[in-house]
Each structure stands twice: as structure tokens, then as C-alpha cells.
């Protein structure tokens, strides 16, 4: 596959009446954006705001983050979800790099989060560095939680595609080319390099715990091998999975850090032979089936090394170490990425399951670390909602608007695909 990412670097965003980019300034057609979201008759109202890096702005409760893009040579959107199915991963895509759609609105569940654009909070989320177009979605009355989640999920995707139209004729600042041939071709090219696979575990457990591949709910699949570029090219969307700190937002699927960094090594130190989804199910039977099948698939593809990333924590810790154990038993070397729940003071047991084979583990931070966030000048959304987030609690919002939360509540803080910079040090 060959994917060209045409990057248009965004240095500022303004609201206006047309979608365009001039000298790095993105103008968003507000009425057009609202209309694009209101095509869904289950959306009652849409509000649009801007939050820029460094501004004393707090966004809460955040559901998803999506990167606005435009495809010239294919279906413009998310195949299998907002457009008809089409294979992704080939061709050229124009990207408004540095801009992001952030969806907010009435709470659906506990797994939504906070983004602070300045100060202490900004350090812990990668989305304090993007120019955020904040889309506040109010659905019609009477929707049950599952319907509500679908409405906001699709609204965010549509908003990103609409804003992405500004990339159609914008001047390209940089083009990055990604190219990986068939496994046979690459192995012929690099016969001496170790074959490496990336196993991406995804929560697949129901409301606010789902991930979709070409629109297919990952609950319904057994582990599947796919091309890394498909994920980079809109084939994977977030069903707003799990706690805010380690949910893989749609933006992070579009820019999977492990895929990027493995690709960087492709042809140099490794032969990167692809990605595998391994859904994290709730049943023990499901865990055995998927973990066994995942390890078998890696073995069958001839992997020498595998990186496994988790999504969420708690019961998925079992999937993580089960996959590791099975891979190591088959002689495949593994490195794992997980966050940990070490308690407020960092002295508690970090994982809920263990395996002697898990000798190489990257910790992406302690989800229970408590941070103090000063009052914002402006809150987009509803500050009080922080009290019902996973990682917040009744009373965590002070009268003056300051906030005390666990990293749990901060979008992307402990990203287990290694998208951010948190780690843990033992004292």
C-alpha cells in the first residue's frame, strides 16, 4: 500500500462563513458545519466554539476527538460508517494538521473527559496542543443511551469531514509518503530483518466501550490482521471507549503513534508486517478464544517480535498478559504497553493480572494520579459534569471553578498506544 499524507499546518482557527485555509489560518463555516451535523434528525441543536493552545479554556465532557481531512481520490469520510465501504490505506489524503474536532454535550456515560488548554491540565493531554473546534451536540429528547451515543459519534465524524473540506484546495506544506508492499515483497527486500507485528487490543464491551473497523463492531470479530495504513486512513473509529485517559479516540486511530513509530523503523531495523486487532471481550471464553487466536495469528505470520497495546484497564489486563504468555511460549518476543492503577499514592498493585513472561513493559502512567486544575476563564460544556466522570467524584469541582481529578478523567493522559509522555518511576 502507498499512502500520501498531504499536511496543511494549521496555526490558527477562526469561525466564519466559508471553509478555507489561508496562510495557515483555518476558517470554519459555522452555519455549514451545523447543517452538516443536523442532517441527522436526532440532533436537536449544535453549538460551535474554538479552543486554542494556551487559552485558559476547559472543555468537558469530551466524547471524542477527530482529525479533519479531505480525500480527493476516494470516498470522503469514514468508509463503512459515514460513506459506503471502500478499502482505505492507498492514495492521497489532505490533512488539516494541528486542527481537531472535539465533541461535547450532555453526558452519555462516565467515560467522557476533560481537556485543559493551559497550565497543569494541558501537560497531561495531547489535545491541549491542537486548535480545537468544539462541537456541542444536543440530541432530541427521549433517546436511550445507546441511541444518544450513536448520534454524538456520527455527529463528530460528519463535523470532521465538513471542516476537512477546507483542505481540498489548501496549499500543501509537506507530503509524507508511507509505503509497505505485500509481506512477500517486503521480506524479499529485507530478508535479514526481524518480522514485527503490532497487536492493538481494543475494548469491545458495549455502550461507550466499542471500536469499529469499516463500521464493523469489534465485538463481533475474532482477531484480524490488517494493513497499518488502513487505520491511518479513517478505517477505524472510536465508540468513545473506556475511561478518558486511555480511550483511543478516533484522532489517535488516525494517527496511531505505535504504527507511526514502527513504520519509522521499517526497512531499517525491522520488517513491519502489519497490525492485528485483538478485541477485549467480557467473557472468559471470549478472552481465551481471542488471546489464543491472536497468538496463533502472530505465529502463523512468522513474527519474531510483537508490540501489544492495551485499551482500558482492569479485566483487559488479563487479555494483555494472556496474549503475552501465549506469544512468548511460541518463542515470539513481546513488548507491552499498559497504564496502571497504583492508587492515589502510587503504592498499590499496578495491574490486576500478572505473568512471569511479561518482562518488557512500558507503563504509560498511573490512571489514579490526582491533579489539581486551577479555574478556567471559560468552560466549554458543563463543568459540573466532571463530578460524574470516571476519575471525578462528587465534590471534585470547587466553588471557584477549580477542579481536582484523577488522570482517569483527562483525555489521552495515559494513552496505551503510547501517544503521550506519561510514565511511572519507582521510588
Amino acid at each position, binding site marked *: 500500500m502507498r499512502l500520501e499524507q498531504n499536511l496543511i499546518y494549521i496555526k490558527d482557527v477562526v469561525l466564519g462563513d466559508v471553509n478555507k485555509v489561508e496562510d495557515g489560518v483555518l476558517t470554519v463555516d459555522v452555519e455549514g458545519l451545523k447543517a452538516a451535523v443536523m442532517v441527522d434528525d436526532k440532533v436537536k441543536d449544535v453549538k460551535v466554539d474554538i479552543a486554542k493552545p494556551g487559552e485558559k479554556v476547559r472543555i468537558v465532557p469530551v466524547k471524542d476527538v477527530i482529525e479533519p481531512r479531505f480525500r480527493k481520490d476516494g470516498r470522503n469520510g469514514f468508509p463503512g460508517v459515514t460513506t459506503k465501504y471502500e478499502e482505505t490505506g492507498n492514495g492521497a489524503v489532505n490533512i488539516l494538521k494541528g486542527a481537531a474536532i472535539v465533541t461535547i454535550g450532555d453526558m452519555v456515560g462516565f467515560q467522557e473527559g476533560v481537556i485543559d488548554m493551559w497550565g497543569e491540565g494541558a501537560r497531561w493531554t495531547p489535545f491541549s496542543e491542537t486548535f480545537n473546534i468544539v462541537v456541542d451536540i444536543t440530541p432530541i429528547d427521549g433517546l436511550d443511551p445507546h441511541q444518544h451515543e450513536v448520534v454524538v459519534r456520527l455527529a463528530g465524524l460528519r463535523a470532521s469531514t465538513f471542516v476537512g473540506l477546507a483542505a481540498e484546495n489548501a496549499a500543501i506544506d509537506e507530503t509524507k509518503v508511507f509505503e509497505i508492499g505485500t509481506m512477500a515483497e517486503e521480506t524479499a527486500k529485507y530478508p535479514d530483518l526481524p518480522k514485527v507485528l503490532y497487536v492493538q487490543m481494543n475494548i469491545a464491551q458495549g455502550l461507550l466501550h466499542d471500536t469499529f473497523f469499516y463500521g464493523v463492531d469489534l465485538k463481533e470479530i475474532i482477531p484480524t490482521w490488517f494493513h497499518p495504513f488502513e487505520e491511518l486512513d479513517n478505517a477505524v473509529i472510536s465508540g468513545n471507549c473506556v475511561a478518558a485517559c486511555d480511550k483511543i479516540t478516533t484522532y489517535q486511530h488516525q494517527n496511531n503513534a505505535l504504527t507511526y513509530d514502527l513504520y519509522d523503523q521499517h526497512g531499517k531495523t525491522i520488517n513491519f508486517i502489519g497490525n492485528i486487532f485483538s478485541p477485549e471481550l467480557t467473557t472468559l471464553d471470549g478472552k481465551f478464544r481471542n488471546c489464543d487466536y491472536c497468538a496463533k495469528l502472530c505465529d502463523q505470520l512468522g513474527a519474531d517480535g510483537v508490540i501489544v497495546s492495551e485499551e482500558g484497564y482492569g479485566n483487559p489486563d488479563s487479555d494483555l498478559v494472556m496474549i503475552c504468555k501465549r506469544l512468548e511460549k511460541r518463542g515470539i518476543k513481546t513488548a507491552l504497553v499498559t497504564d496502571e492503577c497504583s492508587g492515589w499514592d502510587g503504592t498499590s498493585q*499496578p495491574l490486576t493480572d*500478572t505473568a512471569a513472561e511479561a518482562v518488557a513493559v512500558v507503563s504509560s502512567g498511573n490512571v489514579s494520579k490526582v491533579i489539581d486544575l486551577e479555574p478556567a476563564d471559560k468552560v466549554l460544556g458543563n463543568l459540573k459534569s466532571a463530578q460524574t466522570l470516571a476519575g471525578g467524584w462528587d465534590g471534585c469541582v470547587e466553588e471557584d471553578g477549580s477542579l481536582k481529578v484523577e488522570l482517569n478523567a483527562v483525555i489521552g493522559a495515559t494513552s496505551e498506544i503510547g501517544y503521550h509522555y506519561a510514565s511511572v518511576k519507582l521510588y
Partner: protein
Amino acid sequence: MAKKVLFYLNQFFGGIGGEDKADFEPEFRAELVGPAEAIAKNFGDDLEAVGVIICGDNFFGQKEDEARAFIAQVIDEQQPDIFVAGPAFNAGRYGFACAGACQVANEAGVTCVSGMYEENPGLEHCQSFAWVAQTANAAAQMRKALPLMANLVKKLAAGEEVTPDDDKYFAQGRRECILVEERGSVRAVNMLLARLNDEEFTTELPMPSFDVVEPAAPILDLSKATIALATSGGIVPNGNPDRLQSASAQQWNKYDISSYDQLKGDFYTVHGGFDPVYCNETADRVLPLDALRDMEKAGKIGKVYDFFYATTGTGTAVANARKFGEEIGKELKEAGVDGVLLTST
């Protein structure tokens, strides 16, 4: 202003005598001796040694309350910033006394430094809060132990960062969440490359070791047994009156269900880690009071206990969960409950 350092030594290292002086009553002396003197020798202007407490090992072991009270009194009088006990190497009684002395100092808010061998039984009593230098098992290695302890004293007094690897102390077990230079994905790729190339690497998360819980004996006659319900599924009365957290629970709650035949309609979940829709329709799907009542009416079980216990499992620190379990277990035991149906999500 210089930081004040107070030392603690046993009768042997304090120059009083050997085993025959092991019941030596604790004393405070302004003049340093032995290891205390050696450590203080290299203090700069920023550190001031205020003196040493010398106490017989048997005295500490046999009259611990008295020894502790004496140490507390000296700390109160001298107001040290740092308390240095030992090194105790592998001497069990001395290690135990150093740990106890450090506990007293720690409770007074004083930073504690010690030195022990890894098998010293005193270690586990102070490792979590004191900075205990890793020493050899015998005092013959005194020359190696003292610089390690002196280094810890200096760095801690200056507020400098110390780490188990760099400063050779027994890790306290505190996992501090920090931001680092390289993002997680780069660190993971580098770690895998190191493994593939048989190069050295350091895991960021050594695997935890688990307790093994021995199952209780079976209930021989269920028809006479009192069965309680408990859950990590976050089941609470509508409105969550006790404000149970939706993740990372800091508490457990109990609710009187003696007048309920089912939970449906009056209870729901605040658990943030699963799809709550079906539970909220009928909370009995997570905590099956309805089924248990049927069994009670049919005489299959003796009685449903009048209260159920609930916390939230998701993201809850194991240390908290262990504490909740001990507290709830104690209540159930005292109430004469024979068995517990413990449900998750």
C-alpha cells in the same frame, strides 16, 4: 539554616559494650561516636549533627514502649530534620530496633535514613517510608555502607531526587507518575528492538506478585445458612445517597434490603466500567436479590442477610480493595453470615 541530623545506634556501635550490655537503657549524647561520627564527618555547612541516641537491642525488644517514648522525647527536644538509624546489616534485633526508631521519627514528620541487608527482618517494618541503604550482611562492610547512607542524608536534606538504582536503597514501592522526554510508543519500539537484538533493557513495570487466598470450607447445609450479597458492581439506591465513586472507589457502602424482594426500580449502578443500561433496567442482573429471595422462600437457603455491601471495582486500587474486603469480611463474620455471593460486572 543547616538541617539537623539525629542518629540512633545500638549499644555495640555506640561504644557501650557487647551482648552483656544489650539491656542498656537509652541515652541521648551530644557527642557522636562510631558510625554516627563517620557519617557526620563529611557534613558541610548545610548539615548539623545534633547528637546520638544509644539504646541496647534487648532493651528496645523487651521494653519497646519505653524506648519509643524516649526516642519521641529526644526528637521533640532536638527537632531534627533527618533521623539516621544504623546501619544494622543483618543483625535482626538491631534492625528491628532501627525500624521501630524510624517509625517514631516518621510519625513526628522526620525524614528517616537507615542501612540494612536485604534479609534483615527489620526492613519490612520501615522500607515503605524510610530510605534504607542496601548494605552487605556483616559489619565488615561498614566502609561501603557509610558512604551510601551519607549520600542519602545529603541528598534528602538538599531536597534532591533519589532513586533506588542511583542511590542504592530499597525501593519504597511508591510508583510516581511522571512525564518523560520520549512518548510511550517510541519507548515500546526501543524496548522491543533491545529484546530482538539481545541488548539490555529495563522494564517500566515489573510484574506484581499476587496473594493466594485459601477458600473457606464449604457450607454443609445451605437450608440453614445465612447468605449475604456483596458486589464490586457499584449498585446503590437511586440517587447515590452516599456518593460512591464511579471509578477508583475510596469507600464501600451497605444498604438495608430486609424489606425488598428485588432491587429493580429502587437501585441502579454508578460503575463507570461497563454498559449500565441493562443493569439499570433491573439491578438484580448484577446483584441477584430476586433469585436469592426465591431460594429463601423455597427453603433452599436459610436467610438472605439484611444488608448488601457495594463498592465500585473499576480502576480501584488493590490496596483499597484489600482494605474494603477486610472491613466487610469482619462485619459479615461478626454478624454470623455463613456465605457470601460476591458479584462483579
